[in-house]
């Protein structure tokens, strides 16, 4: 026997489902332009039918809403995040390289190539009147301009590196913040879904946060189901480059630690990955364990990677092929032999030495707290921080490199290029030699020349300053010269008569042979690997330009790719007003029909109850 008001219930269920449908439509319409919103739909089905008493079939009991679903494509989400990481990396690189470009300002009149051209041209003037102190002063002035241009470029790049360092810290903070918010959402979603409902809007928010996170660092996000204690537990995990970051409602934090090591006396020593670095750059660490995150891993992308590459990139310039000569594992003193042609300007304070063990295929990095070259640069003595008998230095078959390499041309690469420029230039002008000691044909070094009074003081024309004054002849070490302390010899600048233009003591006041020979420096095609000095300087800025253009192109193309994927996501999840209007009409008509039906049923009941019978 059917219940009395069975038809009412059936019609009423129609009203309820129509209402639910309209609610969902209005929710969709309200959120049509909300970021990350996936359109929702009512899951409607016929309610459990009842069997008829007479055994002839079943009768439907109306419809029911058994859930509200979301249109979302997890695959597209994953693709979107993957591409966004790369976009983040190249956007960061594009911005940073553009900044470096503006700093170097090569296309303007104050760029390095303009400065060196002006200096060499002024030398041509000087050679016509070597006796005239005005011409001498002018030449020294332009030499000073060149030195100032090199110094300014160098210092601004160093400042840029320090700004990048601060940005790394800022990005780490943002990552932590997002991670924490995701963990909170996970908790909320868990509580909400205990009841069996789907927390659609919360999930949308969580997905949006994950998208945002993927721009900073590449992540894998997955919702896993596992059986724990007899129940299925759904847990959302986010991993950064394979290391778990958010696991359910627990979020790890990343921190930054300045690169320091403790030397034998217990003092903190700055560790330099690159000799040109600012002291105290940050490593990114996992706060819980203190483990240093490998930000140089080839798979890591995202803005973090872009910033790190720009900050630390040295174009693979480390001393490779070092071999251990002796190692004392109690004091940590390690003597290594260096290959020929190794760089001679490793920072004497702390640094990193990497050991590659082919048997395990892993690279282990060790920090050292002091580094000293021997007299001719063929060996060096290092003090390893935290020595232990397990250290790999003396193991057979290992290969070592002093300094670690990052295969990107970041700030340290450009700093090193500037350093090479000033060192090679100074050696050529002062001594008529290239950095490797070979003589430049036809060049008489300034130190071999005679000044206006016929004296030879063997003084360099370009030198470097230590503690504000020119370094003394006894302490002059070309590898201590950097573009930051490079300067025209202050004594000569103060007294232009000391400029040694003559090549003979009693040659005469107009003897210009030393200055004349400097023209051969400008035209020496073997001065640098890249060619002559002008080619080298132009090469620095055109390498920078090419890399910046490449970063721009990548950023633009990945921007296009991500927006194409986003469009595809929108195709699945986006709200279309027209569609919602159609749904609205559909539900409205359902509601109207159901309401009409209730009226009719009401009429029937009215007839049955009030007008039929006694």
């Amino acid at each position: 026997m059917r219940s009395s008001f069975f038809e009412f219930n059936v019609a009423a269920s129609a009203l309820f489902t129509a209402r639910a449908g309209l609610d969902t439509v209005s929710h969709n319409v309200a959120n049509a332009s909300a970021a990350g919103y996936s359109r929702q739909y009512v899951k409607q089905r016929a309610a459990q039918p009842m069997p008829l008493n007479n055994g002839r079939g079943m009768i439907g009991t109306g419809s029911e809403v058994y859930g509200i679903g979301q249109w979302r494509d997890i695959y597209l989400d994953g693709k979107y995040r993957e591409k966004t990481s790369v976009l983040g990396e190249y956007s960061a690189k594009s911005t940073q390289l553009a900044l470096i470009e503006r700093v170097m300002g090569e296309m303007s009149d104050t760029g390095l190539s303009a400065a060196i051209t002006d200096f060499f041209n002024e030398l041509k003037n000087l050679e016509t009147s070597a006796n005239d102190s005005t011409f001498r002063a002018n030449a020294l002035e332009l030499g000073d301009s060149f030195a100032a241009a090199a110094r300014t470029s160098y210092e601004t790049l160093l400042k840029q590196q320090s700004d990048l360092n601060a940005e790394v810290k800022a990005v780490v903070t943002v990552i932590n913040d997002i991670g924490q918010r995701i963990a909170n959402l996970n908790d909320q979603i868990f509580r909400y879904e205990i009841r069996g409902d789907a927390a659609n809007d919360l999930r949308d928010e969580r997905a949006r946060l994950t998208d945002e996170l993927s721009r900073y660092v590449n992540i894998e996000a997955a919702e896993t189901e596992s059986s724990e204690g007899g129940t299925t537990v759904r847990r959302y995990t986010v991993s950064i480059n394979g290391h778990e970051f958010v696991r359910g409602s627990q979020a790890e934090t990343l921190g930054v630690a300045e690169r320091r090591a403790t030397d034998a006396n217990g003092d903190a020593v700055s560790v330099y990955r690159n000799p040109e670095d600012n002291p105290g750059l940050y490593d990114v660490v996992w706060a819980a364990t203190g483990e240093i995150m490998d930000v140089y891993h080839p798979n890591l992308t995202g803005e973090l990677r872009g910033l790190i590459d720009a900050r630390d990139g040295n174009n693979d310039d480390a001393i490779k092929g070092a071999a251990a000569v002796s190692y004392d594992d109690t004091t940590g003193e390690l003597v290594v032999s260096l290959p020929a042609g190794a760089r001679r300007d490793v920072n004497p304070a702390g640094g990193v030495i990497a050991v590659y063990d082919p048997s395990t295929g892993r690279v282990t990095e060790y920090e050292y707290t002091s580094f000293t070259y021997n007299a001719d640069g063929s060996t060096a003595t290092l003090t390893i921080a935290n020595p232990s008998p397990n250290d790999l230095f003396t193991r057979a078959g290992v290969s070592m490199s002093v300094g670690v390499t990052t295969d990107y041309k970041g700030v340290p690469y450009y700093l090193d290029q500037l350093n090479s420029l000033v060192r090679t230039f100074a050696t050529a002008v002062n001594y008529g030699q290239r950095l490797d000691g070979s003589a430049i044909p036809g060049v008489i070094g300034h130190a071999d020349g005679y000044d206006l009074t016929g004296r030879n003081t063997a003084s360099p024309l370009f030198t470097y300053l230590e503690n504000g004054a020119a370094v003394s002849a006894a302490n002059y070490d070309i590898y201590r010269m950097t573009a930051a302390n490079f300067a025209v010899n202050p004594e000569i600048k103060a007294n232009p008569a000391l400029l040694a233009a003559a090549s003979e003591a009693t040659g005469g006041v107009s003897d210009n042979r030393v200055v004349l020979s400097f023209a051969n420096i400008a035209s020496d095609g073997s001065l640098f690997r890249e060619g002559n000095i002008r080619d080298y300087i132009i090469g620095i800025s055109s390498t920078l330009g090419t890399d910046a253009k490449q970063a721009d192109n990548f950023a633009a193309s990945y921007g296009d790719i991500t927006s194409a994927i986003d469009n595809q996501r929108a195709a699945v999840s986006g709200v279309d007003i027209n569609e919602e209007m159609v749904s609205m009409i559909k539900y409205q008509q359902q509601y109207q029909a159901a309401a009409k039906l209730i009226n009719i049923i009401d009429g029937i009941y009215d007839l049955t109850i009030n007008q039929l019978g006694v």
Partner: protein
Amino acid sequence: MRITNQMTTSRMLINITRNMAAVDKFYQQLTTGKKIQFPSEGPIIASRALKFRANVAETESFLSNVKQGTSWMEITEKAMGNITEALTSIKELCAQGASDNFNIDNKQTFAEQIRGLLAQMETEVNVTYTGRYVFSGYRTDKPPTLTADQPGSDYSITQYLSSGDVEKARLWTRDEATLEVSVSETYRLKLPYTGVTDLTELRLLDAAGNPAGVIPLETLPTAKGDPRAYNPAGDKAYYIEDTGEIILGEDARNAVYANADGSIRLDYRKTGLKAGELNPEIYFDCADNVSGKTYRAANQDIYYEFGVNTRVPINTKAETALSAAAYGELRSMLAVVDGVVPSTEAELREYFAAQGYVGDGLTEKIKERQTAERQQFSGVLHDAFSNMLGIVEKRSSQVSKEYTRLGSGMNRLSLIQNRLEQDALSYESLMSENEDVDMLQATMDLNAANYVYQMALKAGGSISQTSLADFIR
């Protein structure tokens, strides 16, 4: 594929942004006139631009050097011209002096004029350009001929001469006792200074500069009254201190002529230089005994750069304009001519009276002696002037060779200037082609981009207006 409003609007926004970027790019080009602002916009264009700018600046620098070098050479040319004229005048005077139409007094007047022309040449060789002596090589603060006396100076000088500088002259001495003038044919070399000391030998060097013999010199303080002076024995060679002559005996002479391919080296010491004398620091390898500095005469060519690996010397040295040998020869010849002083009547009378001649015999003897002297002196003067004529012709041709070389040097500079000016033009135009944007093209591009942008805006504005909601009652 579903297309939602959101997709359409986001696409519309992206397209409008892209069009705006294109408009911005062409606007930048049009307003700056350059294709790129930073290397990243066009690395190849940027690197070419920097190279061309450097080339343009360098070419201007070379042009400035060319102008400097040309001015220097013009000053030199003018001075050389004046020296050539002076030498021509000297030649004329020597021709007159060599003829027999003039007597001793006239010839001494010619000598006076020649002295004036020599002084003029000394002034010409001291010409300056922007305060620097043009003929002094690198030592542009020192004049080639001294402008003032230097009483405290003391130099050890090395001078090189050649066998062609040996002059065959007729020189005379007078016996103090007999007042008899004897003229001898002598072979002599002339130093540019008088009164030098420490000249003890004459060294012969062969063509390669290796020693080829030494001739010892005996110093005689003066030739006056010394019959040996101009009449050396075969194996002797004298240095006469007060005239600065080296007299070669037959052996010495033969040795010098045998070494005709080589050179002669003289080392001596000169103190107390006078105004008008040659500055040893400019002319010779010497050592200043007061300051201890040594000076070399070689490698005093001033080179200027006129192009990459193009260096041209722009100066002329004093030795080519007024050589030490020519100076010495002129001075010496003037000394000879001035030195011709016939015995006075009183002296002869006294002498012959002492000999016992009286009255007419005395007068006759005096006349006889005077006639003989006149003839002897006439021969001496004739030789002096006609030798000088030959010498001046030789020196003149040397100077005009240098003059010609100077002219061709100036021509070369002028050609270099032409080429540099053309280079400057072509670098400028290459630079402009590379860097500068074609204004017409940029204007058209900007207009096209602007048009596309406006169309995008218009289209975007029209598509998003209506939806189904507008048509539902």
